[in-house]
């Protein structure tokens, strides 16, 4: 009797172990950062939209890509405006960009848009919240892999961009890593992270150019 009970207990224990292993495998699979043809989405749009646009009541999501909006000619135009070529195997014409249109009641009050950028040790995801005129309300680095990440994600760093628009960022040269006017005054919070600092500024300029091409120029509201 005792040994039969022991057998049953052992069998149950084994089943439980297999169950937990299956759960582990599931978690392993779902915990890994998996994305499609990699665009840049907010991790938790409900929470993030409310944080970046405190007075908003809702949002609508739309998608755009250079390929669908104009193909190679648009890509060349964006590169010219950026002052740098799209490079690498991930910065391509078919990258899908997610545009969050922000509403307060029935009135559209702004946009949130993010882009991926190659950083020194990993991808950087740079989001901006824009008002209807294309002026930056918030600058937010959602993800960055670096030992200096904390300083670049600090709200004080992002606050330097508040009130700027594409006109200001047009004064930034991503190849030289230098700018004039307001953008030239932006302070790198940590000199050791110069590569990621430049990547963040390039991402911001790219972000605003894409928003201009995808949204503001089509709505006749040039910032």
């Amino acid at each position: 009797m005792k040994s039969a009970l022991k057998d049953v207990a052992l069998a149950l224990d084994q089943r439980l172990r297999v169950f937990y292993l299956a759960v582990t495998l599931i978690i392993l699979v779902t915990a890994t950062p998996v994305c499609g043809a990699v665009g840049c989405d907010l991790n938790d749009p409900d929470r993030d939209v409310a944080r970046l646009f405190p007075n908003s009541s809702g949002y609508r999501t739309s998608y755009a890509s250079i390929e669908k909006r104009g193909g190679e000619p648009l890509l060349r135009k964006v590169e010219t405006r950026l002052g740098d070529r799209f490079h690498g195997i991930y910065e391509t014409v078919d990258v899908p960009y997610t545009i969050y249109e922000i509403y307060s009641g029935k009135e559209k009050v702004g946009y949130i848009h993010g882009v991926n950028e190659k950083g020194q040790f990993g991808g950087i995801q740079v989001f901006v919240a824009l008002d209807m005129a294309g002026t930056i309300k918030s600058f937010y680095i959602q993800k960055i892999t670096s030992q200096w990440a904390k300083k670049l994600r600090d709200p004080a760093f992002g606050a330097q961009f508040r009130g700027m628009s594409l006109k200001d960022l047009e004064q930034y040269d991503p190849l030289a890593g230098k700018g004039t006017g307001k953008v030239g005054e932006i302070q790198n919070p940590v000199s050791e992270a110069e590569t990621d600092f430049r990547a963040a500024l390039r991402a911001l300029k790219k972000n605003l150019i894409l928003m201009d091409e995808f949204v503001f120029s089509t709505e006749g509201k040039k910032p």
Partner: protein
Amino acid sequence: MITRYQIAYKNLLRKKARTLLTIIGITLSSWVLVSLLGFNQGYERALNRDIENMGYQIMVMAKGCPYEAATMMLQGGTGLRYIEKSMVGSILKEPEIDQATPILMQAFFDPNKGENGGIAGYFGVDPATYPSMKPFFRFRQGEWFHDDSADEAVMGFEAAELEQREVGDMIFVPEKNVKLKVVGILERTGTQDDGTIFVPLKTLQKVSGIDMITTIGIKVKKDADIVELENKLYKLPDVQVVSLSQVKQTIMKLISTARIMVLSVAIIAILIAMVGVINTILMSVLERIQEIGILKTMGAMPGDIFSLVWTETLILCACGGVAGIGFAIGFASATDFLVRIILPYAPAGGLVVIDVSLAMLTMGIILLVGLMSGLYPAWKAGRVRPLESIRR
């Protein structure tokens, strides 16, 4: 000469709205049915593919390891249980074993991944044995590690895409502040390997300060008795043995609730469609009772009337069935997307696989159920008495 099918077709066209609604009902039920059967087939196939692509059939790990591993992955903490790497040597002595490879799983918390941080998972693998277990790996860029303790990494397709890495770039191991050079990027495999960062075992041991391993992956020789091997491995001290077929069974059990729910919906949909068919055909028979009487006075036998009414049922079911299967095939990717939202775990690859045999099977079921529904109205039509019906 007008055929029975033409007559049946014209009869159905008399009440277009009713016929259309009935066909829509049948379409919806066959859509649900074929999608469910396609899911049953596709999910198991995808799961098998995921498990086969792991490259090994049995895993040996420390007792209690799965509990700890789940905790680690959920909370980003440490506390995994480990086994000695030397155990690989003793396991390899078993004649059933073709290959064995040691693996060290580690996860580090990255506070700068999203608003609340995230987990970065690493697989420490032995460059001498692991690649041969994954012969289907193809490199998009670069190759495997240059030596067994190099500060290098090979990234799965999606891990590299997310981190925007190319061969020659560096990656940064959070918590440990260690930099590794990317030497290879894999082509997309459609499995969990796409999101994995592989590091030489010795390197990950050095980074994490652990000189042990978490798992031994075992590839069994063809025709070897896996059950007997498992029994032998159970005798090793403080380890547990998990065959991936057991894991598969457990995952299948986990999703069985969802399958039962969908099956219930499919059965209800079919029942509703059956009632719809009975209603439509019966109404049609009752409305044409005088016509049927006249047909009989002209020499039509009960069997002729029966087959005429049954043909109408056949046309309704065939149209609904074909449309339903068409929609199921056309919207398979949308169904796939919805299923992935609902299920706790979905393997990579297509979850809804609809092939010709499945489409034929569904068509057969729909026709069979439909014809059964048409039995009563057809029998009632066949029993109509000519004179009584004409006098009405």
